[in-house]
C-alpha cells in the first residue's frame, strides 16, 4: 500500500487511534476516505462537532467491536493494578517506618490523577482544540463528547473501540507515571509537596508528552521527528526516570544517607510488587495493540523480554557475586519490561529477548555507578526506568523490523526506515529521547523550584528520623500494640 500523505503541518491526528484505523480501513484505498477518517478522529477528541456531519457521510458507520473494547477494558484493569503493585515494589525497599508513606505516594495517585484525568488531563493529551503539536485542548474536559452519552460510541468512524474504554486505558498510564517518580525521593519528601508536584507535573509534563508521542504531535510518526513508541518507553519510563533524577537532585539526599544505609525491610513485598507489575504489563503493552485479534503478539514479546531480563540480572549476579538474589530477579524482570515497552509491537521474538537481556545489563551497570558516585536516587527509579527506557527506545530503533512498522500507521517512521534503514530510525529515536530528557528535565526542575517558593519540599530532619508513616499520615504499618 503506497503511503498517502494525509496530513500536513503540525495539526495531526492521534497516532494511537490510527492503529485501530488499520484494522477497520485495511481495504480502504481511497485517499478521500482516509482523510475523512482523520477528520473523524478530531471530532472524537471533541475538536469540532460541526465537522461531524460532513465527514460522516463519507465513511461507513463504525461498529463498537465487543472484543476490541473488551481488550481495552481488561487492559485498563491490568494497568490499574500496576500502581498498587508498584506501591508494594517500592514499599518493600524502604525502612519499615516509611512503608505506608512510600506506598501512599503511589496509591494516592489513583485518587488524585484518577479525577484529574477525567476533568482535564485527557483533554490536554488527546483533544486537538489548541491545534498544537505539543498540547491537546480543552474540548474534552469532563469527558465531554467522548463516546456519546454512555461513552459506548466508537471515537470515530473507522475505529471499533468505545471511546470511553480508550480514555480509561490512557488514564491508567497517567496514574502510574508520576507514581514511578516517587521511588527516587521517598523517605524525605513532604506529602503536601508531593500532592502539588503530581498535580502540576501531570498537566504540564505528562499530558503534553502523551500528545507529542501518541496524540499525533511533534515527536511521533505524524510529527517532525518520526520516532515510534509502542506503549510508553518515552512517555512513561524516560519521562518518569528523568523527572526522578531531577527531583532527587533538587530535593537532596536522605539525611542519614549514605552513612546508615538500611537493607530493604520486606523483600517478599518487592517480589509481590514485581509480580503484579509483570501481570499488569500485559495490559500496558498488550492492550496497546488496540485490537484483540493481534494483541497476542505484544503479550508475547512483553513476557519474553521480562523473562530474559530476570534471567540476565540473576546470571550477572551469580557470576559476579556468587549468588542470584530475589531483589535482583525482581529488578531484572522490571528492567526487561521497561526495555520492551517502546518496541513491543515492532520487534521479532528473538530481538525481544535480546532487548530484555541488554536492558537488564544496562540497568545493572547503572545501579552500580549510582552506588559508586553516592547519588541518592533512593530506589533506582532513574537507573531502571530512565536508563531502561532509554536503552529500550534506542534498541527499538536498531532492532525494529521493517515489516512491523507499517507505512499506513507510522508514515514518517516507515519513510525514515525506507531511506535510512534501522540507522535512520535509531537517529529519530535518539532525537526523541534527547528532546524528552530536555523537556522533562527542565520542566520538572521549574515545577519544583516554583513549588519551593510556597512550601518546603521535604520534611525536617526530626520528622525524617521519626518516620514518615506517623509524621505524614498518623499511622504505623507494623505496630506491636495492635493485638
Amino acid at each position, binding site marked *: 500500500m503506497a503511503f498517502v500523505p494525509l496530513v500536513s503541518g503540525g495539526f495531526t491526528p492521534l497516532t494511537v487511534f490510527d492503529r485501530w484505523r488499520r484494522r477497520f480501513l485495511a481495504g480502504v484505498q481511497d485517499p478521500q476516505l482516509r482523510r475523512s477518517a482523520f477528520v473523524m478522529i478530531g471530532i472524537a477528541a471533541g475538536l469540532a462537532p460541526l465537522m461531524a456531519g460532513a465527514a460522516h457521510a463519507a465513511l461507513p458507520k463504525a461498529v463498537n467491536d465487543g472484543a476490541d473494547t473488551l481488550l481495552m477494558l481488561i487492559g485498563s484493569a491490568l494497568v490499574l493494578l500496576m500502581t498498587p503493585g508498584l506501591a508494594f515494589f517500592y514499599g518493600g525497599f524502604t525502612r519499615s517506618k516509611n512503608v505506608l508513606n512510600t506506598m501512599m505516594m503511589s496509591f494516592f495517585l489513583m485518587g488524585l490523577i484518577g479525577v484529574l484525568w477525567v476533568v482535564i488531563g485527557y483533554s490536554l493529551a488527546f483533544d486537538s482544540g489548541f491545534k498544537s503539536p505539543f498540547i491537546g485542548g480543552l474540548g474534552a474536559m469532563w469527558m465531554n463528547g467522548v463516546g456519546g452519552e454512555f461513552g459506548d460510541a466508537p471515537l470515530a468512524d473507522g475505529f471499533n473501540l468505545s471511546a470511553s474504554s480508550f480514555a480509561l486505558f490512557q488514564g491508567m498510564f497517567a496514574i502510574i507515571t508520576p507514581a514511578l517518580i516517587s521511588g527516587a525521593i521517598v523517605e524525605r519528601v513532604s506529602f503536601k509537596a508531593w500532592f502539588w508536584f503530581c498535580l502540576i507535573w501531570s498537566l504540564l509534563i505528562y499530558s503534553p508528552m502523551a500528545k507529542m508521542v501518541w496524540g499525533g504531535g511533534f515527536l511521533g510518526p505524524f510529527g517532525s521527528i518520526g520516532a515510534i513508541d509502542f506503549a510508553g518507553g518515552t512517555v512513561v519510563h524516560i519521562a518518569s526516570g528523568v523527572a526522578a533524577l531531577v527531583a532527587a537532585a533538587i530535593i537532596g539526599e536522605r539525611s542519614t544517607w549514605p552513612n546508615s*544505609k*538500611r*537493607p*530493604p525491610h520486606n523483600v517478599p513485598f518487592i517480589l509481590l510488587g514485581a509480580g503484579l507489575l509483570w501481570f499488569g504489563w500485559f495490559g500496558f503493552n498488550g492492550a496497546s495493540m488496540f485490537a484483540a485479534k493481534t494483541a497476542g503478539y505484544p503479550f508475547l514479546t512483553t513476557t519474553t523480554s521480562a523473562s530474559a531480563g530476570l534471567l540476565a540480572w540473576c546470571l550477572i*549476579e551469580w557470576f*559476579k*557475586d556468587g*549468588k542470584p*538474589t530475589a*531483589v*535482583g530477579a525482581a*529488578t531484572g524482570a522490571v528492567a526487561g519490561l521497561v526495555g520492551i515497552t517502546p518496541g513491543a509491537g515492532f520487534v521479532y521474538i528473538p530481538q525481544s529477548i535480546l532487548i530484555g537481556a541488554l536492558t537488564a545489563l544496562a540497568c*545493572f551497570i547503572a*545501579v*552500580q555507578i549510582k*552506588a559508586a558516585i553516592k547519588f541518592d536516587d533512593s530506589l*533506582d527509579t532513574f537507573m531502571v526506568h530512565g536508563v531502561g527506557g532509554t536503552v529500550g527506545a534506542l534498541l527499538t530503533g536498531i532492532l525494529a523490523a521493517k515489516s512491523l512498522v507499517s507505512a499506513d500507521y507510522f508514515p514518517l517512521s516507515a519513510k525514515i526506515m525506507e531511506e535510512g534503514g534501522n540507522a535512520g530510525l535509531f537517529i529519530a529515536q535518539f532525537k526523541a529521547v534527547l528532546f524528552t530528557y530536555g523537556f522533562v528535565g527542565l520542566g520538572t526542575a521549574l515545577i519544583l523550584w516554583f513549588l519551593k517558593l510556597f512550601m518546603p519540599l521535604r520534611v525536617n530532619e526530626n520528622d525524617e528520623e521519626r518516620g514518615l508513616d506517623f509524621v505524614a499520615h498518623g499511622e504505623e504499618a507494623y505496630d506491636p500494640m495492635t493485638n
Partner: protein
Amino acid sequence: MITALVRPSKVDAVKTALVALDIVGMTVSDVRGFGRQKGQVERYRGNEFTVDFLLKSKILVVVDDAKVETAIQAITEAARTGEIGDGKIFVNSVETAIRIRTGDRGDSAL
C-alpha cells in the same frame, strides 16, 4: 533464672530438652545482637549492606536451684552447633516468684 541467647533455629530443640527434664514453662523473645560472630554482609542490587545486629532468640526459664546445672547442660547440648554464633547463657538468682492466678509464692509458683 536462666537467660539463654541462642540461634532462633535452636529454640525448639532447647524447649524439647527442657521439657524432658520436667522443666515446664519458658518465655521466648526475638532479640538482636552481636558478639564474636559480628554482623553479616547482605547484597541488594549489587550493593553491600553490613547487618551488624543478628537475630537471636532469648529464652527465659526460672528453675529451682537443684535443677540449674542440669538445665544449663541440656540447653548447651541442644543449642550447640560448634560454629561461632551459638550464643550465651547467663544465670541470676531470683528473689521470689508469684503465680498470679492463685497468689502462690516461691518454688510452688514455678
